[in-house]
């Protein structure tokens, strides 16, 4: 185990605490850069979605994970970003301009949502953000002169430096990756700045933060605005990737998916946003794979265990019928969410930390290190 000897404040807030980080993240980046030449086009497309979901995850992490303000309305921010891009594109605005404009507009809307949210807490805030998302969805469907209503809008391919960037090509993937990396680095810098520490202080205790002289309202609004702006950037990429947007894409379901991203990844670290995005996006191909291959595998296993060919055929049909049942995906989603909340509250990144610590401390690891504290003295209602 490596012990870091910190001698000054700069050591404490360094982005890469030691050379090991530089090597491992450098390797990761290198692998991601050559990925388009290794993976199939389907997996590349999924990887782009991982990037987009991870950007939203980082945005949501700032708000929910670090400032402690739950939001079930982030699909609306994504929609605003996507629609801004699609609208400005009609006037031949260049990509970098409308990309920034979408982020800016979404950030402003986020700040406007943040103001009413200042006095709300817990469940009230969740409901308020859901209401906001519903209203935005309805506006998108009704404001036909701008959004073309339920017909949706086509999104043209990106024109960058005189070339066309195909939504399936490697360049688009690099753009998404670059935005993701910039977002993560920016967020890490934000989190070690006074603003970021104020966010965390508000999450841990609003009363304590206020008594330390933090302007709670200001920082909450800032957190909303930053989180929304990042989601808006993701919205532009999302629109380009899908090449068609319509209001029914940005429903509560999508907001819940974003929350699932950070919940499954782990709500205490940016790693969680990325891991959660990988999990959520890759679960679809995985389920399809299970659906196609599981019946054969299970009946094969049954045959080797001594079932006759007819019996094995029955088993295969039964498994196939079960796997293609309507709504199985929803049930699996539900089980995954509940299982994570119950058994892995720190998420995938928490599991990784546990495994790492297990080997670092080898025979001395104890489970209690990561035990959550239960608080039976209720404080949510009167704080």
């Amino acid at each position, binding site marked *: 185990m490596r012990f870091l000897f910190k001698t000054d404040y700069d050591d404490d807030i360094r982005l890469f605490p030691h050379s090991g980080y530089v090597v491992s993240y450098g390797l990761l980046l290198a692998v991601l850069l050559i990925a388009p030449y290794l993976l199939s086009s389907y997996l590349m497309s999924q990887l782009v979605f991982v990037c987009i979901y991870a950007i939203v995850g980082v945005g949501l992490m700032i708000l929910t994970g670090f400032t402690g303000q739950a939001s079930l309305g982030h699909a609306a921010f994504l929609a605003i970003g996507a629609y801004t891009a699609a609208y400005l594109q009609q006037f031949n605005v260049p990509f970098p301009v409308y990309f920034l404009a979408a982020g800016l507009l979404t950030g402003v809307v986020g700040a406007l949502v943040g103001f009413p949210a200042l006095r709300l807490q817990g469940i009230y805030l969740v409901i308020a953000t859901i209401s906001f998302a519903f209203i935005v969805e309805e506006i998108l469907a009704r404001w036909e002169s701008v959004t073309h209503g339920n017909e949706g809008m086509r999104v043209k391919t990106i024109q960058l430096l005189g070339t066309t960037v195909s939504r399936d090509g490697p360049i688009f993937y690099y753009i998404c990756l670059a935005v993701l990396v910039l977002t993560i680095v920016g967020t890490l810098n934000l989190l070690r700045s006074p603003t970021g520490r104020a966010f965390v202080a508000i999450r841990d205790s609003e009363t304590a933060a206020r008594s330390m002289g933090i302007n709670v309202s200001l920082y909450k609004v800032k957190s909303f605005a930053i989180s929304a702006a990042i989601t808006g950037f993701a919205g532009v990429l999302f629109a380009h990737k899908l090449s068609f947007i319509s209001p029914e894409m940005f429903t509560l379901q999508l907001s819940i998916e974003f929350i699932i991203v950070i919940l499954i990844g782990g709500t205490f670290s940016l790693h969680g946003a990325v891991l959660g995005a990988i999990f959520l996006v890759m679960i679809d191909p995985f389920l399809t794979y299970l659906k196609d291959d599981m019946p054969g595998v299970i009946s094969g296993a049954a045959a080797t265990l001594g079932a006759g060919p007819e019996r094995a055929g029955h088993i295969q049909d039964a498994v196939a019928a079960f796997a293609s049942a309507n709504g199985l995906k929803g049930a699996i989603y539900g089980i995954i969410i509940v299982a994570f909340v*119950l058994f892995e509250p720190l998420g995938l990144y928490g599991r990784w930390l546990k495994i790492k610590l297990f080997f670092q401390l080898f025979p001395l690891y104890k489970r209690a290190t990561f035990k959550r504290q239960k608080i039976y003295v*209720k404080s949510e209602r009167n704080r």
Partner: protein
Amino acid sequence: MLDFVQQLVSGVALGCVYGLIALGFVLVYKATEVVNFAQGDLMMLGGFFAFTFIGILGLNYWVGFAGAVICMALFGMLAERLVVRPILGYPQFSIIMATIGLGYFLRSVAGMIWGTDDFKIETPFSQGVLRIGSLVLAYDKLSVIAATIILCALLYLFFNRTTLGTAMRASSENMLAAYYMGIPVKRVVSIVWAISAAVATCAGVLLAPITFIHSNVGLVLGLKAFPAAVLGGFGSIPGAVVGGVLIGVIESMAGFYLPQGWKDVAPYIVLLAVLLLKPEGLFGLHARKKV
């Protein structure tokens, strides 16, 4: 004027349904401070149980109703034991997520078992209307209003006049202290879940003739019942019903007097406006931690 009264009554009836679902939220919240996002889905499941008993097995309406309520009460206890009890005492957010997951699961499983069609239950109130002058009131809507009033009164008395109700209020204030006072907190919590699932079932069965039962009905109505509960102030029983009625009336009026599209958003706009002015809802208690 007649249109107005007609819209008002149908709004009140719709609102009572929201109020009934909201009552379930409020019960669970009052006793355990758990916000149950799966309440609408419990209602949906209750409706399907009743449909199975009445529509498929051909039982008498009231017998089937009672059977569904009992089954769902047991199911509520089971859900509490499996999903909620292990995470009691953890931050509210994780509990919300767990119940959202539970809702997903219930919706899909119900879709897999009963299919995705709309179902209807034949009830004694399905046909017939009450005429007062030129005002026409359908019995199925009146039955919802009556049931809401009865359930609300019963629950109010239960919480304020019985020992068990007092125990529930005590454990919601402070679980640890209630436990020290000899209140069996775990059992209290499972009873609360049973009651709330039973209330949800009542809502589901009463609703069956009006909106039909399908696997997504819980989500659709649950999302309307939430604003109702919040509007009234989470944790207040009369608040839930008043909030529900308000949302129902607003929706019905907006659907009638305003252009198309307002019907679905009007309740949320009103909700946001109310939350701006009174962040703890209309009947919510405002408490602040002293330091």
